[in-house]
């Protein structure tokens, strides 16, 4: 007997079964490259990853200031939670920097989520969810650091190494381009950067022996304009820093998983590159291993590397240099400042890569020394098979990817500092595509650690003040013209500090650790501070003492009480 079936109700997109309104005002339609060039002239918005191309993470907004910040309160909270089985079910974390355009927030979550939210009320306007395979290769958790917006579109790099452009009014897909090879251990976690008519996107996958690259895509079509590999082939410039006859360059790392900065006058992108692979077994890759652990100055028109500076030649400690290179001027000189994982604060001439100053910014550094001329002398590193060594800073660095900031009014840099060591022994393994390729066993300290927000003079690099914490600081800091620095802690507290003195002024317990990049904006004359909160990611690397910390998935948005 044939069974008679009734028709099931038709399927629906899950987001239609929510309170989302499914449309947003056309705020990004007129968001041109010219506006991004002059981003700081519209302080009510935060229209690119760092707030502006210079990477300062500084806002001219001053309604919330050192005098009144003690009255700061939540205006709304956005929450997501996680659903079903997804990649890294225990490592998902909220790492993004929310963008805001004329009262509309665009923010990415883990696992291919992107939300468009009313930045005044917290109402979800639309949601996009890219389908991500749960077996995608991830070194450091299920995370994404943010989106880019321009010309009516939102750009997202997905965990399975695609780049998608969405209609900013409704989240409908406009184009989808495959950016990397998930079968080769690649993924994508970076916040894209719009420059001219291109969106610039870097690779992830350094712990799987991929070959790092930076790509530019046409914002209208998604067609790739150029790709620049960060490990040269034999015969290319820099190839002399790799073994002549080996295969090491093919798996050499040098990924580009954090957004770069850009100087439009010099027409140069400043992009940080990641560790060489294998991370800790340098014997299989003798040489300096360019262009890993470097800042590369890239011509955005063709992807050519104009100059480079390598912060850690022949890295044996997993000291990626992906972190921001903040552009600033001093005595008429165009400079950049960079706090490296290796524990040193570098100031370079950004016209040519010449070293201006290098100074330590974390108390405990014993992996080696960098002298005032930039000469690197290693002293403790994994060398003999199976023999453990202990060094500072550990592989998460004196500062992880989370960003420092610079306040032009105080002329101070502010850095979230991690002071943690690690025990590592070389453990050689064969390279096999798609498998982790560290060449070591690694145990990061979960005791005897500390942190701080430390302020450094732009003119001398000397430490001016520090606000000390029991736990390492693992979230980006934000500074404003209100004489404030905002800093989230792994314990869940969001803090406000006096930007000139470091005096602690305010705190709020958000219920989960901070590992994101807070931003600020205003709507109808009211200033807000937006803080994604959700502990996770590479906790075993940067703070294993908090492996048991509560997960979360919220954006807390703060403001002063309405009159």
């Amino acid at each position, binding site marked *: 007997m044939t069974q008679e079936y009734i028709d099931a109700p038709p*399927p629906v997109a*899950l987001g239609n079964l929510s309170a989302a309104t499914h449309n947003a005002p056309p705020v990004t339609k007129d968001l041109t490259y010219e506006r991004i060039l002059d981003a700081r002239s519209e302080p009510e918005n935060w229209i690119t990853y760092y707030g502006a191309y210079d990477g300062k993470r500084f806002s001219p907004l001053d309604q919330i200031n050192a005098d009144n910040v003690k009255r700061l309160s939540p205006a709304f909270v956005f929450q997501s939670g996680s659903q079903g089985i997804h990649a890294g079910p225990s490592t998902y974390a909220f790492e993004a920097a929310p963008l805001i355009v004329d009262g509309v927030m665009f923010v990415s979550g883990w696992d291919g989520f992107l939300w468009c939210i009313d930045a005044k009320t917290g109402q979800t306007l639309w949601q996009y969810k890219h389908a991500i395979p749960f077996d995608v290769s991830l070194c450091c958790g299920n995370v994404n650091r943010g989106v880019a917006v321009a010309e009516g579109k939102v750009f997202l790099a997905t965990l399975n190494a695609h780049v998608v452009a969405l209609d900013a009014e409704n989240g409908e897909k406009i184009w*989808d381009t495959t950016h990397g090879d998930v079968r080769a251990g690649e993924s994508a976690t970076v916040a894209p950067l719009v420059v001219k008519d291109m969106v610039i996107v870097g690779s992830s996958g350094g712990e799987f022996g991929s070959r790092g690259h930076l790509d530019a895509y046409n914002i209208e079509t998604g067609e790739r304009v150029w790709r620049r590999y960060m490990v040269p082939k034999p015969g290319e410039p820099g190839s002399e820093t790799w073994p002549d006859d080996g295969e090491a360059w093919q798996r050499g790392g040098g990924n580009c998983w954090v957004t770069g900065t850009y100087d439009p006058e010099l027409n140069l992108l400043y992009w940080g590159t990641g560790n060489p692979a294998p991370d800790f077994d340098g014997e299989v890759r003798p040489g300096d291993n360019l262009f890993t652990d470097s800042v590369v100055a890239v011509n955005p028109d063709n992807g050519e590397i104009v100059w480079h500076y390598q912060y850690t030649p022949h890295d044996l400690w997993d000291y990626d240099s992906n972190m921001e290179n903040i552009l600033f001027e001093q005595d008429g000189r165009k400079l950049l400042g960079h706090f490296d994982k290796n524990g040193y604060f570098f100031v370079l001439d950004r016209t040519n890569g010449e070293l201006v100053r290098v100074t330590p910014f974390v108390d405990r550094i014993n992996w080696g020394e960098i002298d005032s001329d930039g000469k690197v002398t290693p002293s403790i590193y994994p060398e003999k098979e199976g023999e453990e060594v202990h060094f500072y800073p550990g592989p998460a660095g004196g500062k992880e990817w989370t960003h420092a900031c610079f306040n032009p009014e105080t002329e101070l840099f502010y850095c979230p500092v991690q002071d943690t060591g690690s025990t590592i022994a070389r453990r050689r393994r064969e390279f096999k595509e798609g498998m982790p390729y560290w060449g070591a066993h690694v145990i990061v300290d979960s005791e005897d650690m500390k942190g701080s927000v430390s302020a450094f003079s732009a003119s001398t690099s000397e430490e001016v003040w520090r606000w000390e914490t029991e736990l390492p600081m693992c979230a980006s800091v934000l500074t404003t013209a209100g004489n404030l620095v905002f800093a989230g802690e792994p314990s869940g507290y969001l803090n406000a500090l006096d930007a000139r003195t470091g005096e602690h002024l305010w705190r709020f317990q958000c219920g989960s650790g901070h590992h994101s990049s807070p931003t600020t904006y205003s709507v109808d004359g009211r200033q807000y501070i937006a803080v994604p909160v959700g502990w996770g990611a590479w906790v075993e690397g940067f703070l294993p003492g908090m492996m048991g910390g509560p997960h979360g998935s919220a954006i807390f948005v703060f403001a002063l009480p309405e009159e």
Partner: protein
Amino acid sequence: MGRVREKQLSQVVTELGLDKQNGGTIGRLLNHGGIGQVEEDANGRMKIQIRIPEDELTYSPSIAVMPHAGELEIEFFNDDTNTHCAQVPSNGDYQWIWLPNGSRGKVTVTLDGPGYYWYGSNVGNDEGRGLTGAIVVMGDVDEAAKLDRPAQPRP
């Protein structure tokens, strides 16, 4: 060798009573409702039928294999005497469908690259009892996206 091990695994699962509800333990072993390959027609359109057998709280097959990325039409049949549903990943948003007792319904999803994608019945604890499945996309990424390097050894 792999096939023999798989047969042995199925045999042991049956012997232990883990291939049924309230057998060896409370629920059914996840993703143990069989494996099926999707059908692909001459136009490249991929289809599969997935059933929910009575009192088994599993999708059958619970593992659906696509030969490559693309669009997949799944026709669900609920042969159970309880109401379930299916939340299936797709680019843009999950597709979600009610599956009342004795119903059938189609869901079309788009998956853009290789890997395992979860789907499940997100009501009560259907997912934990056994109504959790995987869609497997085989194959490689676009040639243009691959790294410029010689072929590398794989495990």
